[in-house]
C-alpha cells in the first residue's frame, strides 16, 4: 500500500498557507542553480511554473510535444478566469470563492487546497495584467467582469472569448523571457514516454523527439508534470487531438497514485455530434449562458418543427424551471444531466434528437444585436462555421460533451505525488475541483499552481536532496526505463495487424461514453470493464502502425497514446464502479434523490439530483498500480472538513 500523507498544515484554514510558506525550508540563492528541475508541459500550469522557477534561480528544462510551447490546449479556453477581487462590490470575498468552489465540487475536494486557490486568485489577475494580458475593460480603464455558473457574483475576468489564449500567451511570454536569458532550456517536439524512479524518488524522464524519433534520457532533482487531463480517453471531446495521458499514465505505472479517475466533466454547451467521421467536439463557452436561455419543446411532437414556430407557452425553459435561483447559470454537471434527462424523455431537438436549444432572442431584444455581437461575436462566428447556421436568427443547438477531468495524479498539499520528487500541476492533478469543476476555475488553478504554489513548496523537497547529487543518466534505472520505451515502440511497429490505432480509439471512446458517461450503473460499468479488457486484447493482436521509429511518425505517436487510454479507461470505470454514491459529475443512477426524500420535500433539490453518501464515501480514492494484469490497489485519503459542513448541494 502507498503512504498517503496529505501534509495539510495545522492551524486555522485562512492562515494555513501563510504559515506553511514560512515553515517550508528555503534553498539559498547560490545553491538554487545547482538544482535541475524538469517541467513537462507548457500550458498555463507548465509555462508559469517553468518561468517562475527559472526566475528563482533553478536550472529549468521544459518539455513539450508541440512545435512551440504556445500551442498547449489551455489556449482554447474561452470564457474566463475567476478571482476574488470583489471589484464589482457585489459581496465577493476569498471565503465566498472558496465556499462556491467547495460546494461546486460537491464537497469532494480538500478544504485547505481550495482555500489557498481562492487566496492566490487575486495575485494571478495582478500578475497577468502586469504582463500585458489584454483583459476586457470598462470605459474608465478598470477591469470588467462577468458571471459564470455556480456563482451569484460577477468575479470572472475575461479577454473576449479567448481568455485561455491570452493567459497562455502571457505565461508563454514569461517563459520566452527566461528562455532568452538562459534560465529555461526549451525542448520542443519532445514527448515524455517514461518517468525514471531512482531509490523511490522521481529523478528523470525518457523522451522521444517527434521530429527525429531519437530517444533520450534526462535527469533532474525533481520532475514536474503539467501535462493536462485524460478526457481524450473518450475520443470525442473538446480536447485538442494531441492531448493525451501518456505522461501521467506512465508515472502511475511507476508508482504514482491516481486520484478519483471517475470525476470527469461533461460540459453542457457543445455543438452536437453530427457524424461518425467526427474528430472532435467544439465547446460553446459557458459565458453564453449569461444571456442565452436553454429550452426544449414541451411536446415531443414539436421537436422536429422550426423553433421559431413553437409558441412561448409550448417551450420548457427547464433550467429556469428546475433551478430558479441559478437558472441558466446552474453548474455544469447539473446543466448537463438536465439536458440528458429531457433528451431521454424524447424532447431532444435536431436530427439525432440529442440536442437542446440555447436561445438568444430575448438577449437580442433586450440588448440589441450589436451588444450581443460584441460579447460573443467570435463564438457565434465559430458556431456558424461548424454548423452553417446563424445563431442571431435561430437558436443554437447544443449538447453535453466530454470537456475536463477533475481526477488526476494524487498530490499532497505541496503538489507532490506519493512518489517523492514528482510534482503534478493543473488538470493533471486531482486536487482542487472535487467531483465537479466550476466554470472559469481551470485557468485559475493552472496559474495558481504554476506561478504561486509550486515555486513556494518545491524547496521543501529540494532541501532534503543534496545539491549537485542527482543520479547520472547511466544509472540502471534510466537504462531500464529507456529499454521499456523501446520495447513498446518495437512491439507496436512489428505488430502485423490489420486495424489502425485511430479505429481502436473510436471504439474505446464509444465504450467509455456509453458505460461511464453522464449516467452510470453497476451493471453498465461491469460490462464496460469487460468490454474494454476485450478491446485491449484485440488492440495488441490487431493494431497496425505505419512507418518507422526513426522519423516523424504520427501513427506511432498515436498508437502509444491509445494504448495508454485503453488501460486508463478501465481504471476510470473501476473507480466509478467502486464509488457507490453520486457526486458532482459522477452520477450513479442507483443513488439519486426521489420525491420521498426529505430534501426534495423541503425544496432543496429536485428528484433525480445526485445523492452523496458522506458516511461511506467522504474520501479521495487513490489507485495504486499493482503490475500487469493485476487489479489496482485502492488507497483512501479521508476528507476531513474543519471549516465547512458537508451539506446538501442546492441550487434551487
Amino acid at each position, binding site marked *: 500500500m502507498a503512504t498517503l500523507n496529505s501534509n495539510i498544515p495545522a492551524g486555522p484554514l485562512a492562515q494555513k498557507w501563510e504559515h506553511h510558506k514560512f515553515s517550508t525550508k528555503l534553498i539559498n540563492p547560490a545553491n538554487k542553480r545547482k538544482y535541475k528541475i524538469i517541467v513537462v508541459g507548457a500550458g498555463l500550469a507548465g509555462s508559469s511554473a517553468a518561468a517562475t522557477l527559472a526566475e528563482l534561480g533553478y536550472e529549468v528544462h521544459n518539455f513539450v510535444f508541440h512545435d512551440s510551447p504556445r500551442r498547449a490546449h489551455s489556449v482554447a479556453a474561452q470564457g474566463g478566469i475567476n478571482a476574488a477581487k470583489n471589484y464589482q462590490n457585489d459581496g465577493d470575498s476569498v471565503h465566498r470563492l472558496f465556499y462556491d468552489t467547495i460546494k461546486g465540487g460537491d464537497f469532494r475536494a480538500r478544504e485547505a487546497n481550495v482555500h489557498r486557490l481562492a487566496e492566490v486568485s487575486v495575485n494571478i489577475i495582478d500578475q497577468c495584467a502586469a504582463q500585458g494580458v489584454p483583459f476586457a475593460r*470598462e470605459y474608465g480603464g478598470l477591469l470588467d467582469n462577468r458571471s459564470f455558473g455556480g456563482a451569484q457574483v460577477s468575479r470572472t475576468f475575461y479577454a473576449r472569448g479567448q481568455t485561455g489564449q491570452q493567459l497562455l500567451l502571457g505565461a508563454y511570454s514569461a517563459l520566452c523571457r527566461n528562455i532568452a536569458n538562459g534560465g529555461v532550456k526549451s525542448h*520542443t517536439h519532445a514527448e515524455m514516454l517514461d518517468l525514471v524512479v531512482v531509490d523511490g524518488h522521481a529523478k528523470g524522464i525518457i523522451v522521444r523527439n517527434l521530429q527525429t524519433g531519437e530517444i533520450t534520457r534526462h535527469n533532474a532533482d525533481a520532475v514536474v508534470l503539467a501535462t493536462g487531463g485524460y478526457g481524450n480517453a473518450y475520443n470525442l471531446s473538446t480536447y485538442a487531438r494531441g492531448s493525451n495521458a501518456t505522461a501521467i499514465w506512465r508515472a502511475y505505472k511507476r508508482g504514482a497514485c491516481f486520484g478519483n479517475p471517475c470525476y470527469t466533466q461533461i460540459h453542457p454547451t457543445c455543438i452536437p455530434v453530427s457524424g461518425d467521421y467526427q474528430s472532435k467536439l467544439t465547446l460553446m463557452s459557458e459565458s453564453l449562458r449569461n444571456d442565452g436561455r436553454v429550452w426544449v419543446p414541451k411536446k415531443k411532437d414539436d421537436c422536429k418543427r422550426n423553433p421559431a414556430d413553437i409558441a412561448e407557452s409550448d417551450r420548457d425553459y427547464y433550467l429556469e424551471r428546475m433551478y430558479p435561483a441559478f437558472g441558466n447559470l446552474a453548474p455544469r454537471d447539473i446543466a448537463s444531466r438536465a439536458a440528458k434527462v429531457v433528451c431521454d424523455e424524447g424532447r431532444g431537438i435536431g436530427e439525432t434528437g440529442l440536442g437542446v436549444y440555447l436561445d438568444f432572442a430575448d438577449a437580442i431584444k433586450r440588448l440589441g444585436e450589436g451588444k450581443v455581437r460584441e460579447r460573443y461575436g467570435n463564438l457565434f462566428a465559430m458556431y456558424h462555421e461548424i454548423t452553417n447556421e446563424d445563431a442571431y436568427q435561430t437558436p443554437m443547438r447544443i449538447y453535453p460533451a466530454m470537456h475536463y477531468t477533475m481526477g488526476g495524479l494524487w498530490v499532497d498539499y505541496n503538489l507532490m505525488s506519493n512518489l517523492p520528487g514528482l510534482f503534478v500541476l493543473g488538470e493533471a492533478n486531482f486536487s482542487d475541483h472535487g467531483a465537479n469543476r466550476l466554470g472559469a476555475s481551470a485557468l485559475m488553478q493552472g496559474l495558481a499552481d504554476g506561478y504561486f504554489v509550486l515555486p513556494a513548496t518545491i524547496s521543501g523537497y529540494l532541501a532534503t536532496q543534496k545539491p549537485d547529487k542527482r543520479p547520472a543518466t547511466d544509472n540502471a534505472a534510466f537504462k531500464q526505463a529507456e529499454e521499456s520505451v523501446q520495447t513498446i515502440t518495437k512491439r507496436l511497429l512489428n505488430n502485423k495487424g490489420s486495424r489502425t490505432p485511430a479505429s481502436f480509439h473510436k471504439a474505446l471512446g464509444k465504450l467509455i461514453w456509453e458505460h461511464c458517461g453522464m449516467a452510470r450503473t453497476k451493471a453498465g460499468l461491469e460490462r464496460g470493464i469487460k468490454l474494454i479488457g476485450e478491446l485491449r486484447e484485440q488492440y495488441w493482436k490487431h493494431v497496425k502502425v505505419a512507418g518507422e521509429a526513426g522519423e516523424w511518425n504520427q*501513427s506511432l505517436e498515436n498508437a502509444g497514446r491509445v494504448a495508454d487510454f485503453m488501460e486508463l479507461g478501465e481504471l476510470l470505470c473501476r473507480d466509478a464502479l467502486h464509488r457507490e454514491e453520486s457526486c458532482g459529475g459522477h452520477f450513479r443512477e442507483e443513488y439519486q434523490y426521489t420525491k420521498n426524500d426529505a430534501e426534495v420535500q423541503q425544496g432543496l433539490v429536485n428528484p433525480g439530483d445526485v445523492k452523496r453518501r458522506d458516511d461511506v464515501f467522504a474520501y479521495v480514492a487513490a489507485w495504486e498500480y499493482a503490475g500487469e494484469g493485476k487489479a489496482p490497489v485502492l488507497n483512501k485519503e479521508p476528507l476531513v472538513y474543519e471549516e465547512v459542513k458537508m451539506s446538501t448541494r442546492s441550487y434551487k
Partner: protein
Amino acid sequence: MKVTLKVWRQKSRNTPGEFKTYESPALNPNMSFLEMLDVVNEELANRGEEPIAFDHDCREGICGTCSLVIDGKPHGPHQGVATCQTYMRSFKNGDEIVVEPFRARAFPLVKDLVVDRKALDRIQHAGGFISVRTGSAPDANNILVPKENADLAMDAAQCIGCGACVAACKNASAMLFVAAKVSHLGLLPQGQPERHRRVKAMVDQMDAEGFGGCTVTGSCEAVCPKEISLDFIARMNRDYAAALIRGEPKPIAGSGAG
C-alpha cells in the same frame, strides 16, 4: 461528395518531394477539411501506404498548429478561418484540390505538409514580453487602460502564430506576425518601458531568421485567420523608426545605487 487531392509528399527535408494524386472516398459535406484528410489517411493506412503527415491539434482555430496551402491559399478558400475550420461544403463534388505545405526559407520542411516554424518562437524570445517577475505586480486596477487601447491591443494579441502571413507573402516576410506582437504590448501602459528596445530586438531577429522584407501587398492580412490588420505594420514601422532615432537609451547620471 468525392474530391481528388493533389498532395505534396516528401519523406524528409533532404529527399526530393513530389505531388501525388489521391481519390477521396465518399465524403460528408459537414466534415472539416482535416477530417477529410483523416479519412483519406485511414484508407492509406489500411492499404499499407504511409499516411500523409500534417500538423494539427486543437481543431477549433486557436492553437495555430494547422497550416496547409489549399489551392494556392494558406488556410484555404475562406477569410478569417484556419484550415481546421474549413469545411468540405466549401468545395464541390468532383473538385481537384491541391494541398501544399507553408513554403518559406525560414520554415524548413519536416515531412510532407509539416514545416518547422520555430523561427517565430525565436523572434518572441528576442523581446516579445514585458519583464515582470512573478509576485512583483501591483494591484491590477492600479494600471488603468482606456477601453479603446485594450480593445485594439486585443485585436493584435489574438494572433495565433500560425505563419500563414509568411506563407502568403511573396517575400516570405513575417512583418504581420511581429507587428501584432509589438503593437499588442506597445499599446498598453505596461509595455512602455521596453517599447523601443522590444521592437528593435524583434525586427532584428526576424531579419536574422531569413524572413523577407515587407512590400505592403496586403496578402498577409487577406489570409490571416484572425484578420489582423495591416495597420499594425504601420504602427510597428513608426515604433521602429523612433527606436532607431533614439538609439540605445543611456542611463540617467547619478541614479545608480551602491
